[in-house]
């Protein structure tokens, strides 16, 4: 079912958290709400499930206006960051609770709980209490409880934040599999860009209550609208060089580097701009040679990560296939792929 937020605003007392947000999630789509802590992701999510009433604006499920509907009548499934399992109930009672309050017959509940438990692979844990489960198992229980009512909408608030790295990887594909299998419309809140990129059809990047850009993961990565978006996506993160525009070229320092860039044609000379270079676009291949000194080297197994200080003091990051010939303190002359670099105006706008 399609979700539409229309001019949605929310304030707590006098603090405005979200103002005039427009957001549409297509039917069967999984959308990531990505943003730094405190930017209003949870607030948006709680408004969609009806825990917070919007200060103004409308929320639509399909064509139905649910703005003033209490959460009991919205048919949404929510997985909370802390899972919020009911500690005094067994796993079976936890999962069956949404059906129990609908007064479904006990035998029916039992059957449906068994079905959904098999789907999330916890069929052998039904008799336990939440305190006797590992984090990943609790997470599956929370997911099963959110799914058992066959909700129109599934909301996930940082569901993987409490898991270790390996389990996180596993649950990422697990959640995606369930979402595809059930064809449910889902919103995933996260501040982990890898999670957002790997799990979702589209990403909405938020910054202090506003959606900065909304696009598919690859579009967003290759065509960021602002420097904030560019810096948020990618691991290791993008590095920025501060310089100015001069005759259609990016100039770094007094008599330093000159990068002719098509994006800069038509920009008045002397305008301050910054250049965003992803680590994979600075290395042994590429157009423009740059001198620098390696100040940090780290191996990540398959790849090596280097920080290179340029003569003017700015730092470029580089990621390359493993090699042993470069050490910390070495002077290097590596190449920058200027066609893939992004140019941003001083206010962060992409040029």
């Amino acid at each position, binding site marked *: 079912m399609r979700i539409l937020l229309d001019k949605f605003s929310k304030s707590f007392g006098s603090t405005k958290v979200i103002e005039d947000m427009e957001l549409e999630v297509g039917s069967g789509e999984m959308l990531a709400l990505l943003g730094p802590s405190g930017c209003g992701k949870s607030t948006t999510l709680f408004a969609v499930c009806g825990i917070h009433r919007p200060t103004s604006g409308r929320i639509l499920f399909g064509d139905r206006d649910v703005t003033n509907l209490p959460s*009991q009548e919205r048919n949404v499934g*929510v997985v*909370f960051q802390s899972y*919020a399992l009911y500690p005094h109930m067994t796993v079976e009672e936890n999962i069956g*609770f949404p059906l129990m309050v609908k007064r479904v017959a006990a035998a029916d509940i039992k059957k449906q709980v068994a079905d959904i438990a098999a789907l999330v692979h916890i069929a052998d844990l039904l008799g336990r209490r*939440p305190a006797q489960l590992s984090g990943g198992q*609790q997470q599956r229980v929370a997911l099963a409880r959110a799914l058992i009512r066959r909700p129109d909408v599934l909301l996930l608030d940082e569901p993987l934040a409490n898991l270790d790295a390996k389990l996180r990887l596993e649950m990422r594909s697990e959640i995606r599999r369930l979402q595809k299998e059930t064809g449910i419309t889902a919103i995933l809140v996260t501040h982990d860009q890898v999670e957002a990129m790997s799990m979702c059809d589209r990403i909405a990047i938020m910054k202090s209550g506003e959606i900065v850009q909304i696009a598919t993961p690859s579009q967003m990565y290759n065509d960021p609208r602002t420097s904030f978006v560019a810096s948020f996506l990618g691991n290791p993160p993008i590095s920025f060089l501060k310089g100015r525009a001069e005759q259609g070229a990016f100039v770094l320092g007094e008599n330093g580097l000159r990068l002719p860039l098509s994006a800069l044609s038509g920009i008045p000379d002397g305008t301050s701009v910054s250049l965003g270079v992803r680590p994979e676009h600075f290395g042994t291949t590429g157009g423009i040679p740059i001198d620098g000194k390696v100040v940090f080297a780290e191996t990540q197994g398959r790849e090596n990560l280097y920080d290179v200080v340029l003569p003017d003091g700015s730092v470029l990051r580089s990621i390359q296939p493993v090699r042993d010939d470069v050490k910390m303190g070495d002077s290097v002359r590596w190449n920058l792929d200027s066609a893939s670099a992004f140019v941003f105006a001083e206010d962060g706008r992409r040029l």
Partner: protein
Amino acid sequence: MAEKPQTSANFSSVPVILLLSLFSLPLLVMYAYLFIDTISDTEVGSLIPSEFTLRHWSFLWETKTGKPNIWLVTLNTFIFASCITGVILTVASMAGYVLSRLNVPARGFFLAGVMVLHAFPSVTLIIAIFIVLQWIGLYNSLIGVILVKAAIDLPLGIWLMKGFYDTVPWEIEMAGTVDGASRFTVWRRLVLPQIKPAMMALGLFSFLTGWSEFILPQVLAPGAKVQVLSVYLASLIIDDNNFDFGTFKAVGVFYVVPVLILYVFFQKHLMNIYGGGTKG
């Protein structure tokens, strides 16, 4: 996390135990004599009991002249303490939830009010209450004194319950409402079970304060039909004509036994009071 004292103590515990025993010895001796005196007669001036007798316990099977039947009094005390417990648990568990979670108008005023009421010495109200009860016809009735005692103890109970509700995570309630449960169901099925240990403790404390309450029943319900044990006990001392110290002590023991039994059965729940609630 209780550790065995043998392994954790880096000093000998024997002197400590000796010292404590020495200090508590007078009390222990008093308790021992309290019991011994009820089943024996002792010569005046002597410490050693001279003969065994059940004479002092005779109040159990024969009603003394001018005194109500002991079993009626015991029943009254039970009704009194149980009703107080019931009223306090019901009202405090609901009012505490409302003050902790719901956005009621004048919430701050109610919170402050509850606090002030708790600090207010209830004895100062007793004359006014006496007049009010007489006026509405509840003087010398169990219902009247139950209502008064429950009302006086309620502020503390409400405050305690509010504190316990405050520790229940909001997410549980949010999860409950998005799961489709009404606010009442959420309270009844999801939140209340989280504070069960607190309910147990509050219930027990209410029962015990009800059991030992003296002033209110003495002033508001002294009549023979509605007398409670504390009043009965007091009437034994006041009675100068046939004063019997042995019987007085026996009634005292009889009065305290249910309390001891309660402690034995429920001490686990009392210990639990901080162990309950939710984890992770």
